[in-house]
Structures are given as C-alpha cells and as structure tokens.
C-alpha cells in the first residue's frame, strides 16, 4: 500500500512538472499568436483587444497560476482557434471531449486486435520452433515491424479502400450518428496501427515463451508426466505472459503516438489530428492540455500496468 502511495505522489509530481514545462515551453514559442489568429485583416486595435482578452498582459507566473487553478477546477480554458458560438471560443474540455472517443476507440480496437492476434500467434510460433513455420514467422514479423504505420495506412487505404472497396477512404462516420459504422470504419486504421505492434508483441511473447520453456520448472513438470499441452497452458503461458503485460503497457503508450499519424492518414477527427493542427495554428491552450493529457494517459497506463503486474506476479506482491 505504501508503495502505491509513493507511486501516486511521484505521479502527481511528474504531472505538475510536465504542466510547468508545457506552459513554459509554449510561452517562448516564436510567432505572434494574436497576429496568427487575426490573419491578414489584423488591425492594431483588434490585436490589442484580443491580447487583453487572452490575458497576455499578465506576468507569466500569474498566467500559469490562473491556468493551473482553472485546470484543477475542471476549467481547461478555451481554444484560441475554434469558435463555439458567435462570440465565444470553444472550451478546450468540450473540444477534446468530442475528439477523445475517436482516439480512444481506435486505441481500444488496436489493443484488442493486438491481443487477440498476437497471443495465439506467439504461442503457435514458439511451438513451431525449429520448423519451417519458425523462419516464415520470423521473416513476416521482421517485415511487419519495419513498415511505418502511415505507409501501412496508405497500403490499407489502397487495398481495402480502392481495390477491394470494403470501405470508403475519408468516409468517416461520426460515432454519434452511427456507432456501428464508426467502428466499421475504425477497424482499418486500427489495423494499420496494430499490424507492426502485433508483430512486436508476438515476437516478444515467443521469446518470453522460449525463455520460460527452457527453465527448470518446465523440466520438473515434464518429469511429473505432464503432457506438452499441460506444460504450455498450465505452467509456461502464464509466466511468459507476465512480461508481456509490461510490454503491452509500452505498446499502449506507443499507440497514442502512432494514432497521431494514422488519424492523419485516414482523416479521423481524433486527438492526434487536433494536436497537430493546434500546434500549427498555435492554439496553445489546446496544445498544453493535450500534452498534459497524453502524459497523464501514459503515466496512468504505466501505473496500471505496474498494479496489474503486481497482482498477477506473486513474486512481487508477496514481498
């Protein structure tokens, strides 16, 4: 318990540091935000007014304090770029809240794909050690890992979208309109995200299985007269899957990044695309919150992985 207490404190500290870093970093960005917002029609009066409205005239410390207290109270600030109504800007929370399900479902589908494909694949691969299938899998996974997700996205678009016409590239359906159609569309980007990760995970699991297979307790189990099936599913798999949990945690963090690019390829209005467009339009309130949010996701995922690991591995939890 004390362990988790400590972990939580570290987690909060890290988030705080990241928030400071994000805020500081985006204060020194070159480029006049006000000018950028107003474009070529900017007039000094409008600029001055906007500057006042955005609170640019306060000292940085005050601005940070205002910002962070707002965030803690659930007020994530307002976008500088997107309007909600005629005279109000879109609250960042609403903006992200709208994009989040897309990225989230993409990640969920990808992880699902990764898990349901890579586990049986890894087991089968480990079992076929030394046979022809071993080499085939080795080549296949090495190749799959070398394909960048955006190229894979393009290939998927071409193959499934243009040649086979299984889906309409760009024909994204909002999850509010048609959830099934939404998932149906998302399957393809998820595929692009998942394939290299499936290869990685299967490879990792296979190596983990082989390591476990060569350990002494497997010999013990065999000496008891256990069948190979029993040795695999009763002894080896569980132990081999433990490091895979940590590995999957890393994969999830990477999916968050991978989806940035894949969202671009498939035109998904997710968090990743929002981040890219916010960076290029200097929509700093959005960028700051997104950076903070992604950091939080990554840290929390690691935290959860740690907890899960502790739950399933008696060697740690009982110490």
């Amino acid at each position, binding site marked *: 318990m004390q362990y988790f207490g400590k972990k939580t404190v570290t987690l909060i500290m890290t988030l705080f540091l990241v928030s400071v870093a994000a805020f500081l970093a985006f204060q020194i960005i070159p480029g006049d935000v006000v000018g950028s917002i107003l474009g070529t029609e900017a007039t000094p009066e409008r600029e001055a007014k906007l500057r006042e409205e955005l609170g640019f005239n306060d000292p940085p410390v005050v601005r940070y304090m205002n910002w962070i207290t707002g965030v803690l109270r659930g007020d994530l600030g307002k976008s500088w770029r997107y309007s909600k109504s005629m005279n109000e800007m879109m609250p960042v929370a609403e903006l992200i809240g709208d994009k989040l399900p897309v990225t989230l479902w993409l990640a969920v589908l990808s992880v699902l794909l990764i898990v349901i494909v890579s586990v049986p694949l890894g087991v089968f691969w480990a079992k076929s050690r030394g046979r022809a299938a071993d080499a085939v899998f080795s080549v296949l996974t090495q190749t799959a890992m070398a394909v960048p997700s955006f190229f894979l996205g393009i290939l998927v678009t071409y193959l499934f979208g243009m040649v086979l016409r299984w889906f309409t590239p760009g024909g994204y359906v909002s999850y509010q309109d048609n959830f099934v159609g939404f998932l149906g569309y998302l399957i393809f980007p998820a595929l692009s995200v998942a394939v290299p990760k499936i290869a990685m995970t299967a490879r990792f699991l296979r190596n983990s299985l082989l390591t476990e297979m060569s350990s002494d*307790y497997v*010999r013990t189990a065999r000496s*008891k007269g*256990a069948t190979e099936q029993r040795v695999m599913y009763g002894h080896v798999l*569980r132990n081999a899957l433990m490091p895979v949990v940590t590995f999957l945690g890393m994969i999830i963090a990477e999916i968050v990044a991978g989806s940035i690019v894949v969202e671009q390829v498939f035109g998904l209005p997710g968090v990743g695309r929002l981040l890219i467009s916010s960076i290029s339009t200097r929509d700093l309130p959005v960028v700051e919150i997104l950076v903070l949010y992604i950091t939080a996701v990554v840290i929390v995922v690691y935290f959860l992985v740690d907890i899960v690991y502790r739950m399933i591995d008696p*060697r740690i939890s009982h110490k």
Partner: protein
Amino acid sequence: MEDRVGMFPKNENPMIQIQNLSVCFGGTEAVKNVDLEIARGEILGVVGESGSGKSVTALTVMGLLSESGRITSGRVIFDKDVLIESGERLNRALYRRYQGQRMSMVFQEPMTSLNPTRRVGAQVEEMLMLHTELPRQQWREKVLESFVSVGLRDVEQLYNCYPHQLSGGMRQRVMIAMAVILHPDLIVADEPTTALDVTVQNQIIALLREINQKEHNAMLFITHDLNLARRLCHRIAVMKDGRVVETQSAKDIFENPREEYTRSLIQAVPTRVRCKARPGESATGTGSAVSGEIRRPVLEVHDLNVYYQEGTNSLFGRRKRRRVVSGADFVLYPGEVMGLVGESGCGKSSLSKAILGMNRNVEGEIRHFSTRPQMIFQDPYSSLNPSRTVGWLLQEPLRAAGRLDKSRQMSEADMRAAACDMLRRVGLDESCMNRKPSQLSGGQRQRISIGQALITRPGFVIADEPVSALDVTLQAQIMELMQRLQEELGVAYLFISHDINVVYRMSDRIMVMKDGEIVEQGDTEELFAHPREAYTKLLLQEDLE
C-alpha cells in the same frame, strides 16, 4: 566390455537397467556405452566431474532428454518394460505413464525447479491430478500428508505459499514430497544438495536415506561429491568423459579403487583425514607461530561492524541499514593463511569487502600494513575483463601501480617480462598472452586471476571461495598453486570458503562465522580437534558420522 559387465554384482531383481547407452548432442557423444542397473531398495551413486555425462544419463533415464539429444545405442529397461530402445523414437506418451507415477526426479536447483508463480500445494497436487483418480476434495489432505512425511512443519500454511517464500531446504523438501507422493519405484536425484548449505545438506541426505529405507525403492543419486556419495549410497559408479570408469560398493571404492582416475578423484577430495600431512606446513606454520609476535601484522581488524544499505533509492524512502557483520576482531600476519568459514549469508563476503574498502559503511577499525591488497573471486568467468587479452590483463595492475606511484613505473618491456614470469608461475605458457579469457578454460582463468592479483606483490590477498566453482580435481590443483605461490612470494591469504575441508587444507588459522559474528577462531588443528562452539561442531558433523 564383457569383462566389466561380469564384474557387477548381479542383482536379483533390477528395478532399472541401463544397457550400453550412448547419447549424442550434435556431433559430440555425451554418454558412451553406459551400463548401469539398480535393484529395488538400492541407492546407486553416480559420481563425476562436470561434463562427465552423469546428468545426461539421469535425464535420459527419466525420458527428459532435450530435443537436441539423440540416443545412438543401447536401451533402458524399467521393471522389464523397455522404455528406450536405440533406433526408435522416444515414445513420450509411453513415458508419461511412468513419469511421476513410477519414477520421479529431484533436481539440483529447488528455486528454479518449482514454478515461481504457482502455490507449492498446487504444484504437488498436480501429481495427483495427472496420475490418480482421487477425488479433488482429498487432494489437499494427501498433499499435507506428504509434506509431513518429508519433515515439513506448518503444512497448512505452507500449502498456500509460493516457492520464493520458502527457504532452500524447505523448497527441496517440497520437491521431494512431490517426488514421493505417489510412492514411485525409482527416484532420480540430480545433485539435490549442491545448492544447499552444509547443515541443510545433511538433513536432506538423512531424509533421502529414510525414504529409501521406508519405501524400499530404487534411487539414482547423481553428485560431484564423492564424500556425499559414500555417506548415502550402497554402490557408486564413477563417470568420466561419458563413460562409467568403475562401479563398486561404496566401501570398496574408497578402500580399493581400481582405476587411476578414481584414485585421483579420491585424493583430490579435501578430507580431513588426508590433510594432516599438508605440504608446506612447517614453513608457514612456524612463520606464524614463532615470529608472529615479533613481526608486524599485515592487517588488524578491531571491533568491526559492517552495514548493508537497504537499497531504496527513492527520493522519499528513508534509507535503512542492516548490520551484516558485528564485532569482527582479528589480526593477520605476513605469510600466513587465515581461513574464514561459514554458510552462505553469514557475512563472509561483506567482511572481506569491508576490509578492502569496497563497502565504507562500517564502524570500527581496519588497519592495513601493506599496500593495495588484492582479491581473488569465486567465479573465474566474471573476474576477468572479457574484452581484453591475458597479457593486457596481467600488465594492467603494473600500469595502474606505475600511474599511482612514479617510482614503480616500468617500461613496456619490463611489464611484459613480468607478465611472462607470472604466467609461468601460475603454470601457463606464453602462448596465452594474446588470448582473451573466453578462449581459456575455467581453471586457466582462475590461474590468470591469481596471477593478476599477485603480480604487484601485495602483502596480502583475500581469496573469496576461489575454488568453489571448480571441479574437485581442479580444486586440488588451484589450491596447490596458491600454496606454492604463497611460499614463493610470502603473501598472506585471507581464505574464505563454505567448505570446511577446503579451509582446513589451506589454513594455518581458522575463523568460524555465523550470522555476522565470528563465533570461534583458533589454530586449525586445535579447532578441528576440539571445537568449542556448537555451531562449529555442527559444521564438522558430517565427518563425525
């Protein structure tokens, strides 16, 4: 071949027969034409050094030979059933009916041989699940029974423990409980005590003997330790390079070894009996006895406490420290060998590290009267930098010394000459100079290691289990080498070992350590003859049998 078979005392009713067995790994034969048989109620010891093929034989008998191994000749007959016949594929399905139920195995490493993520109770239960029709409700009771039968206590609690929560001895008892729960006809025990401390070792040996007497089953006992085999086994087979050199009753093999190899093996065993006429005793013995009070010591340790930093490197966690050595107090004189004996975790290594300043978390006094004492480690594989050549390794201490003290600076040529000289002294020739450690055998590496420690002529050297990782014959050679160099160079050793016989053979004086305290210290002969402390007696117990 014919003759040798004829020499075996014929068993009326052999439980298992190994006939002319040969096993190949790739191109190398690990086991060559081995013939063995064990009668019901008999314990056969197979003794040999590493690589002699004893473990492969055991695994083959159990049907656990790995995929890469191939049986090229012979057969294994278990109670009249032919289990292995060369030329036929290993019938694993057939074997499964015997494994566990009629033959079972106890392995060397009780930690890794148990599944680390399953409760020990469940692991023993698996035997019942696989081979009996017993209803599930009775499993637990049956397992607890078997736990009691191997001398485990608090079995209810133990049932739900994970392997890492048990001590080494308890784990091995669990392994044995697993092996005997179905009352098999054959138990194969592959070095079951090697990973354990001496005192635990004795208990396990006693347990195996008891089981054998009670169950009247056959037992194949694999070990590298001839002494151990003698204490437990009825008959002993000696193996070398995959062959059985000779097989005799335990008594005969010691009294009438027929083969040269067996004889050398027996000689190499550091027994107390043999060591009384220790070579070089007079020289060093008198050295310490006569001039000890006159000469200045090389090392004085007074009231030394050593602490171990509990390793939390968190920002918030308060550092705890644990005392691992308390009140160590001794003096080491030039040219003498001080033995330090104790079981694993008793603080031997912590003490040596503290003396050499590798752990500064100490209280008390350590006074050196020599410069740059060196250390020889147990593992010859990790104590030499693998990316450097032997020549470079031998010269590096000289270079370092030269850098620290300009007066000791040597020319390249001188250093090379010194390295050659040392190479010869440790019994290797110059051709080794350009080799990397990976190209040397374990014994050769330990020789280089010793050479590297002694090349700067330090006043004393700490040798931390320098022979424990080596086979018996090598052990004897290295010990001889160390003694010879000591005479030549007049260096003092602090000689650390868990093996009281090894320490006995090397030392002028002995300290016995237990739980961080030096419980007894004194002259070697005196201490062996009249141990004062109960613990010392316990350590010596095996010979008192």
